């Protein structure tokens, strides 16, 4: 998929040596999202389970009168899914799905801050020695003594969609 390769390298970083991100926590790991795509950070809302939708996007919520899917990056990264805490938030982002801009809610355990990451501190995900799928990670950014993971949302969502297609056609007949 050539388009995907483009996406992995493109957003946020092109031309800019610094990029604004929103950092958040998932199961103790620190993640960052490009701040431009973030629409809103909201408290947990009543969720409606979508039967048969799978764990990655297993529910929908009401976001300002729109019904948007609620997805769980922990599923994509194989992280353990803990119970919601008082710090749990939903980060609503806009992402392109099958050519359509779509609002999606992401579960997070805790939202930290909007901050600036420098390209110089980033490195490509190592191909060995990591328990996560490297194609889902845009880059790792070193800050202080820790690494911030910048996930490649486009790749994750594309994969989820592709993975689900055959299932969908099987249930249809």
């Amino acid at each position, binding site marked *: 998929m050539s388009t995907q390769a483009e996406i992995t390298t493109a957003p946020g970083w092109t031309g800019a040596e610094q990029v604004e991100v929103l950092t958040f926590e998932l199961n103790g790991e620190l993640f960052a999202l490009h701040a431009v795509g973030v629409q809103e950070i909201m408290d947990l809302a009543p969720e409606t389970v979508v039967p048969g939708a799978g764990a990655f996007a297993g529910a929908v919520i009401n976001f300002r009168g729109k019904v948007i*899917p609620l997805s769980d990056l922990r599923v994509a990264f194989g992280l353990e899914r803990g119970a919601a805490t008082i710090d749990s938030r939903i980060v609503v982002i806009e992402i392109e799905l099958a050519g359509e801009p779509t609002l999606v809610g992401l579960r997070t355990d805790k939202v930290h801050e909007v901050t600036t990451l420098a390209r110089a501190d980033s490195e490509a995900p190592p191909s060995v020695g990591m328990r996560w799928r490297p194609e889902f990670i845009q880059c790792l950014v070193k800050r202080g003594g820790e690494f911030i993971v910048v996930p490649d949302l486009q790749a994750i969502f594309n994969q989820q969609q592709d993975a689900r297609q055959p299932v969908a056609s099987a249930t249809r007949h």
Partner: protein
Amino acid sequence: MSDEAIAVFQVEARENLELIEQGLLDLLDRPEDRDLVDAVFRGLHTLKGSGSMFGFDALAGFTHHCETAFDRVRKGEVAATTDLVSAVLAARDHMRRLMEDPTGDHGAAGDVLLADLERAVREADGNAPVAAAPVQTAWRIRFDLPSHAFKNGTNPLALLAELRDLGEARVVADVSRVPPLSQIEPTDHYLAWDVTLATDQGRGAIEDVFIFVMDEMNLSIEPLDASNADAVVADQTGPAEVVAEVSSILPQTAAPAQVAAPVQSSAPTAPDAAEAGVAKTAKPSESVRVPADRLDELMDRVGELVIAQSRLSQIANSGVDTALRAVSEEIERLSGELRDTMMVLRMVPVATLFGRFRRLVHDLARETGKVIELSTDGETTEIDKTVIERLADPLVHLIRNAADHGLETAEDRAAAGKPATGRIRLSAHQSGGEVVITIRDDGRGIDRDRVRAKAEAQGLIEPGAALSDHDLLQMIFHPGFSTAAAVTNLSGRGVGMDVVKRTIEALRGSIDIASRPGEGSEVSLRIPLTLAIIDGLLVRVGQGRYVIPLGAVEECLELSLDEDLRSRGRSFISLRNSLVPYLRLREMFETGTPPELHQKVVVVSTGTERIGLVVDQIIGDHQTVIKSMSKLHSGLPTFSGATILGDGGVALILDVGHLVAKGQQQEAQMREAI
């Protein structure tokens, strides 16, 4: 040039091309109609002008040639023959291509079309209406222009110069409407003119001078002879509103030149000069172009408002504050009205849809060599815009079918004692919350024997199986079913009746077919008025709430404990002596909750099948504003959408058709297991 401006140009050009097409098609029926010829010419001229303004040079160049050719029709030098009009129609299609894809290489195709057009003009040259010998006639022309004429770029001096070109003209300006200097708006137009013109040209030539401003002005043209030197005769050939406006101001003024701002017919007295100066030109119905997605946004906002309002009324009703309750009720009423108004905004008349098919039928007639007449009925019936758009393809297919398979050739029709012209009738009317669209032809009807033979050959039915006529006709909706012995260029290309049926069902509509051998067929489509809202039955399954479209619900009953236990092995309940299979939604949705003590069965129907859905609780009716599911969930056919409930929660809307299909699938698996 900004992309936005180009997009606006394209939208307008598309409309203009549509009008040109309509005009040309009308011209086929009424080749003598001067108004039509003028309208088409005006359309071509505008397209050329705006095309070159927005940098669509290929379009402007091509259109220029067509305009030049058509100008000869307009001048009465050649007749609007069928061939000529068809050639212009083909050229119009090319203009559309040039407009949509200005960078593409269309040069060669354009040259072929222009050559065709030229040939058609040359052939038509022979039967031109004989032009009357030029006679010098004196005309009296009176006209005024709306006060905003300058803002529209109208130059009255140019109009007068054009009149002078026609012959000797004496121009008198009427300044009676000019207000005192202190009240003059420098950008407004206040003058009217009275022109006496001696020319050898006809009335048409004079009207042409005003061709671009005619709709907005008062114009009277009369031959000047002794008897009616003072009386003003309304110009009968002009547009209707000009006639109306002129005649409405006649009795009040005796001044030589008629001066008035166009007034609505209800105005009791002639406006005096001051009033006329400030009066805006009021058009009967003004319209504003709004992008559809803004409407959708507004609809979302209204949806949110309705939800917020129902939360408010919950709070208000739980307290004792009567003032709060009164306000809450007021807001409830207002938001309800707002929602209804919103719904109406999205409605468009089916005329926009039907209009496209005239061209289709024209092309079909040429391709098949049949004589086909399309008549339409109920064009003012309104449907939601999104529905209209999705109806276009199925209707195209049905009309192709009617023209290609349904109607016979002229010879066959004559042999069967029918008039040579085959008729296709397209009609629409509203019935309750649905719009019924029917396509009827007076062709040969559906050949039952061929349908049966084909169905047997495909193994859809047992050879010799007894089938009701209705069921037999339903066979044509099966995928891959086509009775046409030979697949022609027209029908039998990819989309079949099964696709039509699926599209209609996706719109929550239904399709039915009736046919009489030798007399023709009729396909009726029943489409809900809007996709945005449905009546639903709100139910609870485990923790989740779901909406079942009320149209599919037949009845609700309790699943007694006995029945529940007894039916472990076979999921059937007996309902008035017939066995109805049922699905436990709790199991299907894997809620992981224990069943409610008093479960309910909602019996739903898809028209042919009935199936019970076991739910934990029936909550009640719910006016459901449908929200589509995101692409992440588009692969789940059991849910056709979602809706937001009064408490802000989300309920999924069940797609009954797919649920039933799934139920049958489970049933089949059960049988195999035994």
